[in-house]
């Protein structure tokens, strides 16, 4: 067997033939970045490449100084004879799988992905390859998502019930991706929707990118003694329990996350409700996504990688764990902040 198309170095996933890294975690010259979450898009790279759809949020995350190039999904670049293209991953706005082809060998790095289509980003596309590098954040058979419409209906019902009790609704979710997806499922006829500052700018980026979202207000627009009891407020998890939430008076809190599938995780969180909504694949979709690539070899990164690898091996696949520094493993606040 010849040289591997991809290897893992101390700086990240590396393509030697093309001399570039994918989602590197230490400074490198050339980085292809799958999406703008902070464990994938890190500071300090000489040059970045991302999808067109990702550019605005990437810019917001990395600052004006960063040198960022972008390409449309599907456009093929050739670097040192290596063909590189980005394909929708359905995780958040602009998230991409990276397809790398050299000497007839095709490798695909999934980044984070989700196969259920939603209105806030271009839907996931399966790509055939020889080597598939997959995430496995929710790689256990206990994780099986309900259709998102059901979750949205539950969230809207919770909002209405809070209103009936005279309580504001504080919906906590990761500021990039989760909040906008939650917003897309809210029914603006129920009441006014407000955004935390950390969510506001990113949401504007989504709109600028053509994503249709219900109208929202920023907290500061509420004047004087505003009656928050009818309002829905979207905020990052870190806002919970801080003095910032006091202004809302009596309120109910909910957390949106795939981790909320488990009762213990729901109870550990100091929130009133847990809604199971994830931007990652669940167990059945993970298996079907891997199958659809027709890959002979699968490398599994952050999440339940050892478990998924053992299972795939038993199914006759050539699978191995890829040690990376993507932060997908802890089932706690940190991972909810970073990985979702």
């Amino acid at each position, binding site marked *: 067997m010849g040289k591997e198309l991809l290897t893992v170095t101390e700086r990240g996933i590396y393509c030697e033939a093309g001399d570039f890294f994918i989602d590197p975690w230490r400074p490198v010259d050339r980085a292809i970045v799958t999406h703008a979450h902070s464990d994938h898009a890190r500071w300090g790279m000489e040059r970045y490449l991302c999808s067109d759809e990702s550019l605005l949020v990437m810019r917001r995350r990395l600052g004006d100084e960063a040198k960022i190039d972008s390409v449309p999904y599907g456009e093929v670049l050739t670097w040192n004879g290596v063909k590189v293209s980005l394909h929708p991953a359905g995780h958040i706005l602009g998230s991409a799988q990276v397809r790398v082809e050299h000497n007839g060998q095709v490798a695909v790095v999934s980044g984070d992905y989700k196969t259920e289509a939603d209105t806030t980003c271009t839907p996931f596309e399966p790509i055939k390859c020889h080597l598939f590098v997959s995430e496995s954040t929710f790689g256990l*058979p206990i994780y099986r998502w309900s259709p998102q419409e059901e979750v949205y209906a539950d969230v809207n019902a919770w909002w209405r019930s809070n209103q009936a009790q005279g309580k504001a609704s504080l919906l906590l979710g990761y500021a990039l991706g989760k909040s906008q997806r939650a917003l897309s499922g809210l029914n603006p006829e129920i009441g006014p929707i407000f955004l935390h500052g950390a969510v506001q700018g990113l949401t504007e980026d989504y709109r600028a990118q053509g994503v249709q979202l219900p109208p929202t207000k920023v907290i500061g627009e509420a004047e004087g003694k505003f009656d928050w009891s009818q309002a829905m407020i979207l905020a990052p998890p870190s806002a919970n329990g801080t003095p910032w939430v006091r202004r809302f008076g009596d309120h109910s809190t909910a957390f949106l996350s795939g981790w909320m599938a488990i009762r213990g995780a729901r109870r550990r969180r100091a929130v009133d409700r847990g809604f199971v909504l994830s931007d990652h694949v669940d167990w059945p979709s993970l298996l079907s996504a891997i199958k659809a690539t027709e890959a002979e070899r699968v490398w599994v990164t952050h999440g339940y990688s050892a478990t998924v690898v053992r299972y795939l091996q038993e199914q006759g696949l050539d699978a191995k764990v890829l040690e990376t520094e993507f932060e997908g493993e802890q089932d706690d606040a940190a991972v909810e902040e970073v990985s979702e």
Partner: protein
Amino acid sequence: MKRFAELYAAIDATNKTTEKVQAMVEYFKSAPPEDAVWTVALFTHRRPKRAVNSTRMQTWAAEMGGIPNWLFGECYDAVGDLGETISLVLGESSLGEPAPLHEWMEQRLPELARIPEEQQREKLTQYWRELDRAGRYALNKLIGGSFRVGVSQELVIRALSIASEVPAPTIAHRLMGDWRPTPAFFQALFDGDTQGSNISCPYPFCLAHSLESSLLQLGSIEDWHADWKWDGIRAQLVRRDGQTFVWSRGEELITERFPEVADIGTWLSDGTVLDGEVLAWQDDKPRKFLDLQKRIGRKTVGKKLLQEVPVQFVAFDILELDGVDVREEPLSMRRAKLTQVCDANIPNLRISPTVTAESWDDLAAIRETARDRNVEGLMLKRLDSPYLVGRKKGLWWKWKIDPLTVDAVLIYAARGSGKRASLYTDYTFGVWDGDKLVSFAKAYSGLSDEEIRKVDAWVRRNTLEKFGPVRTVTPELVFELAFEGIQLSTRHKSGIAVRFPRIARWRQDKPKEEADRLSDIKAMLLENGG
């Protein structure tokens, strides 16, 4: 089963008492009686026996989910609960309308326990297929022998009372003893006719607030009646139709525990209800609560204990006389009636004497003797006050001598050190702030070895969560805490700082709702210049 599973999930999804009650009220209002009655049974500690052993459940679930056993094991590790793991790995697959709860309880589960393994497998996997995730979770709990629900009996009673508009004590009474979960029983439970049939029923207790303002604001002392605040078990003595019933404030029937008090009933005329306190009594003086405690835990009492710790009933109010509800009459009139009843020299019955004083100052001086009398302080009641339901402000006050005790609820337990390292002996206690318990003090000592063992066993059975060495427990047990010092503090989350807290006693007589409220403690501290 669908409704039941939804209710079970709704109760689990919230930690707010009001929301749990609300969910139950809606359920009890809408569920068919033949199902609702089973829910009442299950929620009031009638736990079903294990019908299928857990190894089998695990194996069949893995098979049905199409995953190897080792992978099921990984899932179980991640979830920590077998019933939940099974409900999750099988995904959503419900097929139509599942059977109603009573069919499960009366036919399916008993059958499941009876049939041989191969048939069990067939049935159970069919049931799993039939139910959605929530239903499957509820079913697994019902057949796994570990059915628990996050509501106390009192909350169930409260919800039934709201749903049926029947007073809570009536519901409580109707739920007592041995009953079968039949639709007829449920209808009887909801029967609005609370007269007649229900001869044992006590009245809702009238409760007092801690005195929070200056005595002078109470106005003239002449408008007030004072008597001692006894340190025993608050109880109602009910005599009707030739039968006697003694009810604790927790709406528990304690007639058999205190035969001396029950005997008083034989001297009373039918249609008499007295409110008072059961006290261990010796030499014309109540004994310390600690002595009475020896009697509390025992359902039946032997001769020896009866001699060692005899009790008396000290009556301070009369609620019914000659079958007539007299609660609306002013206290002065009720006292006159009570005096007549108690003047008959009935063994073990005494009236709580009026404490007379010329002025508030004199009364304050008399109050200082409370400790020597083994009482907690004084009760102040307006002479024109009716006997109200619950805790209304302004008419009845308790004026305790010692502000240094607080009734608090056990919320966390940790292992001790040294020879107690294997036991849960380090406790954190909470008091009420609205409908939440806020952590307030930690205490390590004060219980007897026997009590420690009991609490330890209870903690293990009632753990909600584990964080390293610390367990979060179901808020249920109430303890009286004593302190060297207690004062207001802005540095503590609860707003109160305590010094050298210790457990004064285990208040097995108190339901958790009766633990102290943060606002009352603060008011008391302000009053005492804390």
